[in-house]
């Protein structure tokens, strides 16, 4: 048995295969944080993230027999969550795709302020991006997809993917700089 799938996890997965509700609950609890963190950066709100999370776990529980136990469960789970988020994106927010936003000016950010930002706040900044930027940024920067893969997933050109990534970064910088200013103002007062 691979190291990354512990005996306990394997037992939980066996229980889930038998549709044991307790095993399912325990698996859900165990991977809730990991899966929710993925869902949050692909959505604009926690409610939306929860919807994708549960859709994803439903797929996990119903498609568990197709899981290859020789591969890491986490990888399979993250793939399911991302695909579910993309499905959701395709169904719900296609109209927002490729909203052209004004490219922000080159902005400067204060490192000390950034260091004080929590993970929640930083992920919150990603959530504030438009869906097209958010997805391309998350897929490319955090989940390691290539532009070719992103283009295929989102049915856009590779150039559009690169452009959206660039614009997403600029937007994030803009938001960070705004935080800097707000924080500076707060300290100054």
């Amino acid at each position, binding site marked *: 048995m691979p190291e990354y799938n*512990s005996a*306990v*996890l394997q*037992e*939980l997965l066996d229980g889930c295969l038998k*549709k*044991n*509700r*307790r095993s*399912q*609950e*325990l698996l*859900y*609890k*165990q991977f*809730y*944080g990991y899966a*929710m*963190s*993925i869902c*949050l*950066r692909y959505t604009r709100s*926690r409610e939306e993230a*929860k919807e994708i*999370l*549960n859709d994803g*776990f*439903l797929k996990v*529980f*119903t498609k568990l027999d197709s899981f290859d136990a020789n591969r890491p469960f986490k990888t399979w789970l993250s793939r399911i969550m991302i695909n579910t988020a993309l499905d959701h994106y395709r169904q719900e927010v296609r109209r927002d795709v490729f909203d052209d936003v004004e490219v922000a000016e*080159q*902005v*400067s*950010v*204060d*490192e000390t302020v*950034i260091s004080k*930002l929590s*993970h*929640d706040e*930083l*992920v919150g*900044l*990603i959530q504030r991006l438009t869906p097209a930027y958010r997805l391309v*940024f*998350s897929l490319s*920067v*955090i989940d390691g997809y290539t532009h070719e893969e992103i283009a295929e997933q989102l049915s856009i050109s590779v150039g559009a993917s690169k452009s959206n990534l660039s614009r997403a*970064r600029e937007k*994030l*910088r803009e938001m*960070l700089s705004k935080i*800097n200013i707000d924080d500076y103002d707060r300290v100054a007062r």
Partner: protein
Amino acid sequence: MIELPDDELDKLFRKSSEELDPTYEPDDWNDLRKRLDQQDGRTPAGWWRKWWPLGVLALLIPAGILLYSVEGENRGKGEGRKEKLGVAGSEENGVERNETSGVARKEANNGEKEEGGNERGVKRDGSDIVREPGVADSERSREGAEGTRKENASVANGNRLVDNGNKVVASNKKDINRNKLKTSEKEAGKSSSKSELNAAVGKGSKTLPRSRSKAGGVYLEPNRSKVEGGDGALSLKSDANAGDNGTKALGREISPPHRADQQAAASELLTKADEPARTLIFASELNGKALKWNALALPGISEPVYELAEPPAPPKRSSLSAEDQPLWAVRFGYSPDLSTVGLKNFSKPGTSVSLLVEYSVLPRLYLQSGAVWSRKDYSASAEAYQLPKHGYYPPLKLSGIDGVCKVLEIPLNVRYDIASGERSRWFATGGFSSYHMNSEKYKYYYKDPNDPNAEKWPGWKGNTGWYLFSHANVSAGYEYRISRKLSLLAEPSIRMPLKRVGYGKVNLITTGLWLSVRYTPVFK
């Protein structure tokens, strides 16, 4: 203030995303669990989706039996109606017959010889002729002889109708019409003996496949067999035309063994029907050979002949009665076992079978006991259990326990029949049950806050024995009697805990739907 390069920005957000650990929200799991329950059929709606075929079957079986019995009753009534129709037809014919036979008898009594008597005699059927062999003694006109021939032809038809037995009722109407037609023709004084005889023979002597005919493919009219009282029926003497022609015709006897001759005679009759002189037979030749029609002995008649005037058989009485009071009865039943702790977290249904004995202590009141074997699957939160405090339990808080128990249950119930019909009964049952925990298996779930990987305690196996009067039983049901002694029952039931049972001391609630067969060997 610095300008954050792309890789630094990416690293910042990547790290935040990876290290983000949202707090667990139990409501999120509850939402998912509901969806899973729906998908797995563990909700009431899902349970219904899973078990509806059995439920429908349970409803359809009594409904089908009911429908069958109702149809059976209707069929009986229909048959009764048909019988009545037959009787009515017979009566209708009988009116004619009675009138004519009454006249004929009067004639016979008075010794009067009237031509009109012959005309009326036409209306008679064979039975009248059997009763009045003396008719042949009277002098008859040619018309009368032809009429007699018609009579015989119609008798032949009549006998054929009787011969057909089962078809009597169905064709009764036609026969009535036919009789009316003939009567009207005769009343109009039209003698169409040939056509009518042809029609009669044509109808009566239809050729059958040889494989189906004992007479080699030719239907032998019963009255044509002289030995059996057949053809001689045509050999009536006509004083009028016989004298004119001075001819005796068809005076020969036709014996059953010579059926070919019989057939030939019939065909000869057909071909020579328009030659009265040759077809007329002196009835005096038949003196001493009175027609004795033994319907059973007639060719082609193998079954008893129905007496048309026989009153219809009284309707068959049902053996069932609402007043039937069983003294004692035995029941065998099956039920899905839906066990739960606190009427929530229903898991998959187990199975229960029961063998119960019911003894009547008062009218409509029964004492009921027996044995119920069941497998109960349930799961509940750890708070629902009261586990023994042993040192070897992990110092961790249990999150939940799954239980699978095999239970022998001894119920002691009282059944009361709320409403009783001929076939249906509605009843309610209440009482107490004692549980014997034959086999108990528990799985414990707990979570170590220091270890993100949940672990599962092996659980406990064993049995804890008897729990006397641990549950209260309530149920109501419907009983359908398929026969006097046998009935089917459908009975939703619930067992409410009075005591905690099992190793985990749980308040176990069980619901189910008993589908039973009840046999009543002894009535009061």
